[in-house]
């Protein structure tokens, strides 16, 4: 019989070093004890992020806790500078008197072609959206391709045609690019990396750190369409449904919103990690609570059905054409009206509000009437069986 796992003992030792005390059991009355434990957990969660794994796992790419830890502990730690630090969707730069936003993204979706679009659509729309939610008018994109040996040229042509069409709709141009080819077995057909720049023209400074108690939280349309489409398109789950990706360029929608009201505090496009991840980012950055109503969150019946069947939560499922807006409470109705009068925002809804308490935590008032926490997911929403 072997002894318990050495990695556990290591984890415990590390933890003791960090907190400076041996882990002991508190002795006060129950409700007080519970609060002590909750406080201890809050402190533990605020500790400096550290990557414990020796190797990268799929969790590091899912947009949840592991991704965040990796970004903070490895990238931010090394590149540390005030422009990177906000970790928003785009960096805000000042160049010779102009305000410029710069963003970058990589696209590794599988399958490459899916109902509603392909990797090319994602590449253009995703980059445009990162700029748009930063308050910038998107102007120019770069497109770097990493192609697998053996990849059909016809597929490449198809992808590039999608990119051209998407760029035209969004009003941007692809002005520079690069091509590399790697051996068969790498790059899953085609990977695309992009960078995008845009000019910030509005007198607006958007950032999740600006959220304040009393603000309204608005989502621009039904959530989870893209993620569910991809899951089903992979064909491993043998599920069919009439669902297409929601990939779309949001710059027009954002422009309408920012023209209608000056009360917008922050915008984020809900990609990997879904709406839940964004709400957590808001709560953490601004040190506020976020309270949302399950009833108010728009979800298509088909996305709900697929999520129930698989045991996943639509709040964590990726979108590619939806955004979350934090808006001054007094301007909420005006913001909503502006969104709803644009085709991409027809189903926009106010889903909740920012509160002072409990700071850093996202709460959900369930349809049933109870309350629960919505935390960052550890990895991808794995289909549950139970």
């Amino acid at each position, binding site marked *: 019989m072997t002894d318990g796992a050495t990695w556990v003992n290591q984890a415990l030792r590390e933890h003791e070093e960090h907190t400076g005390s041996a882990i002991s059991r508190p002795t006060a009355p129950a409700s007080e004890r519970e609060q002590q434990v909750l406080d201890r957990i809050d402190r533990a969660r605020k500790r400096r992020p550290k990557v414990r794994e020796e190797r990268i796992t799929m969790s590091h790419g899912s947009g949840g806790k592991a991704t965040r830890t990796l970004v903070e502990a490895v990238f931010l730690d090394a590149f540390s500078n005030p422009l990177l630090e906000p970790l928003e969707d785009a960096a805000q730069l000042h160049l010779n008197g102009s305000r410029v936003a710069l963003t970058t993204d990589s696209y590794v979706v599988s399958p490459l072609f899916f109902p509603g679009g392909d990797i090319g659509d994602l590449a253009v729309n995703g980059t445009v959206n990162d700029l748009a939610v930063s308050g910038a008018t998107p102007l120019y994109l770069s497109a770097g391709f990493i192609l697998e040996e053996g990849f059909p040229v016809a597929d490449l042509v198809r992808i590039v045609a999608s990119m051209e069409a998407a760029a035209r709709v969004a009003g941007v141009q692809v002005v520079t690019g690069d091509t590399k080819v790697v051996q068969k077995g790498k790059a899953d057909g085609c990977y695309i990396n992009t960078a995008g720049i845009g000019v910030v023209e509005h007198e607006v400074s958007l950032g999740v750190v600006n959220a304040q108690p009393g603000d309204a939280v608005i989502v621009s349309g039904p959530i989870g369409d893209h993620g569910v489409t991809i899951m089903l398109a992979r064909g491993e*789950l*043998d*599920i*069919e*449904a*009439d669902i297409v990706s929601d990939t779309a360029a949001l710059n027009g929608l954002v422009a309408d919103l920012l023209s209608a009201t000056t009360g917008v505090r922050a915008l984020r496009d809900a990609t990997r990690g879904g709406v839940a991840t964004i709400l957590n980012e808001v709560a953490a950055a601004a040190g506020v609570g976020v309270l949302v109503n399950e009833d108010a969150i728009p979800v298509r*019946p*088909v996305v*709900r*059905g*697929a999520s*129930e*069947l698989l*045991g996943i939560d639509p709040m964590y499922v990726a979108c590619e054409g939806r955004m979350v807006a934090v808006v001054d409470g007094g301007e909420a109705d005006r913001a909503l009206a502006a969104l709803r009068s644009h085709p991409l925002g027809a189903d926009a809804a106010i889903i909740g509000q920012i509160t002072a308490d409990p700071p850093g935590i996202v709460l959900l008032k369930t349809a049933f009437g109870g309350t629960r926490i919505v935390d960052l997911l550890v990895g991808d929403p794995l289909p*549950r*069986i*139970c």
Partner: protein
Amino acid sequence: MCLGIPGEVIEFLPDQPDLARVDVSGVRRVINVGLLSDDLPKPGEWVLIHVGFALSKIDEAEAAAALQFLEGIGQAYADELEALQASQIE
């Protein structure tokens, strides 16, 4: 290991008596109905789906009865509340 979802039987697969296509809120999947071979569901009936198998038929009469019980309690509660409020009007 308990996640079971109600789904409506749409049709049986032509050459495979054990397999049926079900619909869950617009999502369709083929599942195995072999565990209900003694009393196979008909299209339009509902089953409980778990890991790709139908475990049980959903008894619509029982579901209606359950809801009626809940409505009853709900109504009694609402009546009580109303009575309480009415008695406060002075």
